[in-house]
């Protein structure tokens, strides 16, 4: 089954890198993948779209993704352009970074009653953990949990590969951020950050505090 992902962000927010990381995660999970960007003008802040196709067999088409199964929105201010929501159908999923909360976002998407909405305040999480409002790794973790296409192990490996040139500290912090976002959607796996732990993703299970 061909699954199509469309990511909306702004130049500098990491939409293209996120598409590549999704592709890498799926590829390492034995899927056939294709990831590609659609740049607008090449400058920071300009709207950017990036696409991923994930399948079990050869992917031949190279047109833009008009009917995504998963729509990922890195920047909620992009919602002002309603054209961004084109192609949403019953059963599709929207994963959005917003501080508004799921109920508020669901109102915006009320014309799409059959679309699953997953909302996370990734900016707050990202500033907290990596010190920058870059949300792509957070949404990668969220994407892993919400779609089940690949697991956190694949996410960790993809972050290590794609962000390796930023040094081990940034890699570990991004893994921590992705794990937090992953756990945000998993009611049974709420972590607390343990002071001094650099690598939350491999933290000893005994140290985990499960939120009842």
């Amino acid at each position: 089954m061909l699954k199509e992902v469309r990511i909306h962000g702004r130049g500098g927010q990491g939409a293209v890198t996120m598409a590549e990381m999704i592709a890498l995660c799926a590829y390492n999970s034995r899927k056939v993948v294709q990831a590609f960007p659609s740049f607008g003008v090449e400058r920071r802040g300009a709207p950017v779209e990036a696409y991923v196709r994930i399948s079990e067999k050869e992917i031949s088409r190279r047109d833009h993704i008009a009917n995504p199964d998963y729509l990922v929105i890195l920047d909620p201010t992009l919602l002002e352009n309603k054209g961004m929501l084109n192609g949403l159908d019953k059963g599709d999923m929207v994963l959005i970074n917003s501080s508004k909360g799921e109920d508020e976002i669901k109102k915006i998407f009320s014309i799409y009653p059959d679309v699953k909405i997953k909302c996370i305040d990734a900016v707050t999480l990202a500033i907290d953990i990596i010190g920058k409002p870059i949300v792509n790794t957070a949404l990668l973790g969220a994407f892993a949990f919400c779609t089940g296409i690949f697991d956190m192990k694949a996410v960790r490996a993809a972050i290590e590969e794609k962000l390796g040139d930023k040094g081990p500290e940034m890699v570990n912090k991004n893994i921590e951020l992705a794990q937090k976002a992953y756990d945000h959607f998993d009611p049974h796996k709420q972590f607390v950050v343990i002071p001094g732990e650099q690598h939350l993703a491999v933290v000893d299970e005994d140290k985990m505090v499960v939120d009842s």
Partner: protein
Amino acid sequence: MKKLLEGSQAIAQIINRCKPGVVSAYPITPQTHIVEDLAKLKADGEAEYEFVRTESEFAAASVVLGASAAGTRTYTATTSQGLLLMLEVLYNIAGLELPVVMTCANRAVGAPINIWNDQQDAMTVRDTGWIMLFAKNIQEAVDLHLVAYKVAEGINQSVMVNMDGFYLTHTMEEVNIPEQTNVDRFLPKFKPVDFLDVKNPKTFGYLATQKEYQEIRLQLHEKVKNSRSLIIKTMKDFKNSFGRTLEPVSTYKTAGAKTVYVCMGSIYGTAKIAVDELRKSGKPVGLVAINMFRPFPDKEILAVLSKMKKVIVINRAVSLGAEGILTTEIKKALYGKCKVKIADEIVGLGGRNVSVEDIKNLLV
């Protein structure tokens, strides 16, 4: 080895394995990642070539011209305005019969300014005497570079491998980069016969007067036309060595078809889906891709298209005031040899998305 790679990254890796002596290129979107990766391979000590930085594409082309004339395997890459800036040198490289290989990451040409994909750049330099190959996907773009070097050095003629900007240069997919030992076996060390050498002085491209110029140019014309046999042979050799098919013309579901689309480059993959869907709804359509544009595969095209009632030519470049450039080429191949309707369709200029629906809608 199979890896998930961006198209440009894959090209840089195969070029390094082809072991050029001199690489010179000037960065320009969407070719930039190829040059960046080649520069990085060099900086990281993973490459043997000399990387010559230049102030323009004109200079980069001139550097590879000189290096090639001195008997070195060379490489350059460019696109769009950069290719046009090279134009004078491109004529000279081809006229001097130098085995330069270049990648053109196809892109639109201004004005208005536009950095996205179509094929106007390559079509504009089609008369220079370069052999021109087109890739339908990233794997083919990689593989065609091996064929390009082998052909270029086999007959001393320059070869341009075209790959659609962004659609292939910026897409990540699984690519098989041939192992170094297999590359070495297929493409042995370059042994030039004629080259600039202070110990054995020669001159290249000396003045040809009214007495000789025409003969020299027409000889070159014949040489480029006749290069088809070596290109086809090399593609077959490639298949024997690496197991992947390369051919001057690809066909898809042409058996039993009454109408065929003819296209060039990465749009083939999208058009395949359009053909699948049309076939499902009972429409007898097929698809043809031109992978070798210079020399033009007249024979192969005639063999497929003469059986059709209608041919829809999908052009990504226009001869302004005339028609789509690929349409003219197809008409030339078929003229006086068969009766078939030819529709001239121009799509996807300046990176405009061409969807499966768009391609289906060309069938009216």
